[in-house]
């Protein structure tokens, strides 16, 4: 039976991700929560979640000896990064006085700011928490069956900024437009939480577990 590995490196609540995946795969694939590099590399698909601060995530990745495994998996099979799992794929995060990340994609995670405001000067809360619209700015198999501008659940204080315009497949507006989702080849990553985004999120996860990794 094909396996979907959810990488466990001790960061936050991975149960939600596992439960949502189990809900969409039925009996056709097995979901395994693992921190074992060999197990990850045996899996047909890999999900890389994450919560908390970038510094802690990077430290945990190295403590678990998973850095090379994550990069190798992202080069070789359908790979889904979620929330902090997206942010640490890029080069650098401003969080924790600045921290180098995995550098798989070009870009930075930047802080919304303590005095974040919209165009009309109205103050916006940080973290950006709740249901916001995701604009599908490029076609992707993982958007299948999800209407453009559908709301997903977000919770984050840092947003992804990249000068590589080809990378962004979904954008979101919170004071300004930022990358809500990036993709290249067999990798798809998103800032929001599909496992907590009701039907739209389950649809996206279902698309992922059936995805051949071709963009």
């Amino acid at each position, binding site marked *: 039976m094909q396996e979907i590995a959810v990488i466990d490196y001790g960061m936050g609540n991975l149960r939600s991700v596992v439960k949502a995946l189990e809900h969409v795969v039925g009996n056709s694939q097995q979901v395994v929560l693992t921190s074992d590099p060999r197990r990850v590399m045996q899996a047909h698909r890999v999900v890389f979640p994450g919560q908390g601060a970038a510094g802690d995530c990077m430290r945990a990745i190295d403590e678990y000896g998973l850095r090379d495994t994550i990069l190798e998996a992202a080069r070789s099979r359908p790979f889904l990064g979620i929330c902090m799992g997206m942010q640490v794929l890029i080069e650098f995060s401003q969080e924790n006085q600045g921290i180098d990340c995995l550098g798989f994609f070009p870009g930075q995670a930047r802080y919304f700011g303590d005095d974040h405001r919209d165009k009309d000067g109205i103050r916006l809360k940080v973290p950006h928490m*709740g249901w916001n619209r995701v604009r599908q700015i490029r076609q992707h198999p993982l958007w299948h069956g999800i209407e453009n501008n559908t709301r997903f659940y977000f919770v984050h204080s840092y947003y992804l900024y990249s000068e590589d315009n080809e990378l962004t497949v979904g954008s979101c507006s919170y004071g300004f437009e930022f990358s809500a989702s990036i993709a290249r080849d067999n990798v798809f990553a998103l800032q929001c939480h599909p496992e907590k985004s009701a039907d739209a999120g389950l649809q996206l996860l279902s698309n992922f577990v059936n995805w051949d990794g071709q963009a």
Partner: protein
Amino acid sequence: MSLAKRIIPCLDVDHGRVVKGVQFVDIRDAGDPVEIARRYNLEGADEITFLDITASSDDRETMVHVVEAVASEVFIPLTVGGGIREIADIRRMLNAGADKVSINTAAVFNPEFVKQAADKFGSQCIVVAVDAKRVNGEEEPDRWEIFTHGGRKPTGIDVIEWVKKMDQYGAGEILLTSMDRDGTKIGFDNDLTRAVSEAVRVPVIASGGVGELQHLADGVLQGKADAVLAASIFHFGEYSIGTAKAFMRSCGIEVRD
């Protein structure tokens, strides 16, 4: 601006059963948390909050099972409050499938606990619940104080100073209950909500006093709340979440469909 204001139904859970009577026409067992949570999810609830009102700690394990069961079927954010006193309590709830925990009394007695919790699990899952009561006299400027024990014990702590501190300590969100309004059905204390919402960076959930749909809208429009929480108006089938959202939308408030 396209972030939706959230509507959060709150369920009181005692020994694994939802109490205070939740009634839906087509639900057979009105006390089953899973069935009720599933129903609220279908109606479009943006999150669900469970308040564990079980007095004895022996029965806390039951709450863990409730969360596990709900989290296997309902894929929106779940918050658990009541009896969260130690790091181990938080870990247990998160492992069971909760996304956030709300800390109330333990924060008042040991503010450092909030810091530790946020450091350990991230601010995104730490909600600080604040029970506030108005203490100013007539003609005096508005002032609210933190109360514990269901609004019976004053602490001498000023609410505005407190929420600023909790924001600094790593709270990801403030769940603000007006003890003056709780159970009255005359609406939120919108002066309180606005004062708190303007004092902190993080989102504020207004709670306590909702009796009709206009109150939900007022909490956002006058109170500047980022989310509104209510229990009884949804429980007794008076209003569905969908009706509440339609009403808020008609008031110009952005909500999720």
